[in-house]
């Protein structure tokens, strides 16, 4: 029985932009839940403003984005910018989708902490979160 005094990390998971391919994001959401995190799934067609607003209301520590449409170089930085505007730069941003290596480097420079490319084992994502938030009780 999980301890009630310690709190699971809260992660807002979203698809930003017009892309509707949600197989990956749903699989990741399940894996994160099974690892003990609270995942707020906000669904499709989110704007950067909506995602950040949800993260603030939910007091989330992490935002995860999934983008397969090629629009990642616009949308990821837009989320980072919005976090700046809302004075919430302590919320970390990670993501996945169809994103070439060069773009990953560029996105990291613009404030995205981690990008997981297709084929990444789910455990890698969980391991990274555990390292990042060692106090979270994820079993």
């Amino acid at each position: 029985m999980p301890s009630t005094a310690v709190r699971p990390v809260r992660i807002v998971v979203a698809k930003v932009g017009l892309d509707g391919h949600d197989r990956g994001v749903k699989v990741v959401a399940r894996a994160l839940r099974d690892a003990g995190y609270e995942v707020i799934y906000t669904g499709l067609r989110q704007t950067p403003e909506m995602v950040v607003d949800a993260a603030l209301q939910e007091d989330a520590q992490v935002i995860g984005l999934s983008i397969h449409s090629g629009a990642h170089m616009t949308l990821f930085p837009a989320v980072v910018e919005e976090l700046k505007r809302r004075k919430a730069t302590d919320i970390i941003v990670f993501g996945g989708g169809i994103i070439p290596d060069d773009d990953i480097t560029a996105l990291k420079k613009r404030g995205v902490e981690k990008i997981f490319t297709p084929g990444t084992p789910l455990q890698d994502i969980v391991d990274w979160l555990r390292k990042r938030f060692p106090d979270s009780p994820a079993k």
Partner: protein
Amino acid sequence: MGENTDPDLLKRFRSGDVRALARAISLIERRDESVRELEQALRPDAKTPGVAGFTGAPGTGKSTLVDAVVSLLRKKQSSVAVLATDPNSPFSGGAILGDRIRMQRHALDPKVFIRSMGARGHLGGLSLASREAIRLLGAFGFDEVILETVGVGQSELEVAAVADTTVVVLTPNLGDSVQMIKAGILEIADIFVVNKADLDGYTRVMAELRAMLSLAPKAKWKPPILATVASRQEGVEQLWEAVLAHRRHLEKSGQAQALSEQRLRDETGEVAAELARRRARQALEDDPELARRLLADRTPYRTAEEILDRKR
């Protein structure tokens, strides 16, 4: 002590910073004691919001209905907060919280606040956290609070313990008939809503509900049975009218006062239980001799009394 590392929390809360509200709710959820100071400081600000609880099985369109009610309230210029609970996995402690999805049209409306809460699987925890969160939401300035929960486990009873008005949502195609619905739900409902009333089987559900209610012991408030089609915003005005009528009834009949007193007592008991639980766990950790005796004698009752008798 507590984990709150944010000395400005009160200031930011008072200045209307949503993040401060969200952070305070998190502290409440994890039963962090540091939030007590915040709550104390906010006592003079406290406004009492109206609280309506919505409960129903998955598939009843409950989230869509809540979304429709939020729209209605916004039209009436009320500000509204929604606390939506989903169960945590009993194995991992994690949860997927997806209630926000049905309320997209209120995204970015500063007068709508939506918070997903994992039910965390522990007894009484939901109602304690909800009660405190409601007070905070009131202090922040929200006129109305809607609690939304799936009717799984004990959650609907916990909602009824906290909400002024409990709305139970059903649909015509539930598969099973009304008889199969848990007895507890029928007793706690102040209002019944048959959502998706445009589907076949609607009249049958209404008739069954009426029959059930006619067998119930006479009470001062007769729960109305309403029909809605939430996806088309139909029947929502009447629903809210019924909620307001129930509130007026509570006032006029004096039940509001009685309930309020009862709830304060209940809450005190729940808080006492929570504090006692903590003390017991701590005592067993700190005192190996005590723990050893417990294991040897197998006397939890005696051990508990001993712990509570001890000076703090």
